[in-house]
């Protein structure tokens, strides 16, 4: 649940979600659930001419399993906190 908890701290910030089909969507992180499904608002797509259907939507739900990367806003990553949380999670896991 480490990443679920971490993504919840990013709600309201702008992120770019890159999918396994190469589509990259930038938007404000609206919510995340325990499967790491992601909801973005105010979305825009890089290379919109290649994905014209995305012009009809301004928010979207992305299934966690199709995500390749999430590009994170630099100012919102507290590395010490992440290290501690990772060590705690590693100890807790069997």
């Amino acid at each position, binding site marked *: 649940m480490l990443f679920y908890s971490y993504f919840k701290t990013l709600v309201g910030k702008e992120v770019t979600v890159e999918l396994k089909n190469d589509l990259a969507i930038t938007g404000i992180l609206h919510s995340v659930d325990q499967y790491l499904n992601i909801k973005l608002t105010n979305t825009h797509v890089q290379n919109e001419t290649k994905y014209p259907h995305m012009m009809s939507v301004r928010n979207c739900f992305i299934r966690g399993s199709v995500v390749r*990367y999430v590009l*994170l806003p630099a100012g919102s990553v507290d590395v010490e906190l992440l290290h501690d949380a990772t060590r705690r999670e590693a100890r807790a896991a069997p």
Partner: protein
Amino acid sequence: MGEEEATVKEPLDLIKLSLDERIYVKCRGERELRGRLHAYDQHLNMILGEVEETVTTVEIDDETYEEIIKTQKRSIPFLFVRGDSVILISPPLRS
């Protein structure tokens, strides 16, 4: 709990020792990442910092029909990587 044991008993222990170190990650789709490991979980989801991504593509030249191997690089300050894209992780070389 005392000091964490610095022995490798199972595969994920190797990654535990790489926390805050620069690692190499090979991903699906001919993608390679080099970056500092800040977080991971049992699925190999990760957060990397100061990342350099290298994507290798093979294109066919329109005129000569030769295979052209291209590598594209980009830098990303902080990146979450979903574990199901990961093929292998290699820790930094130690002496």
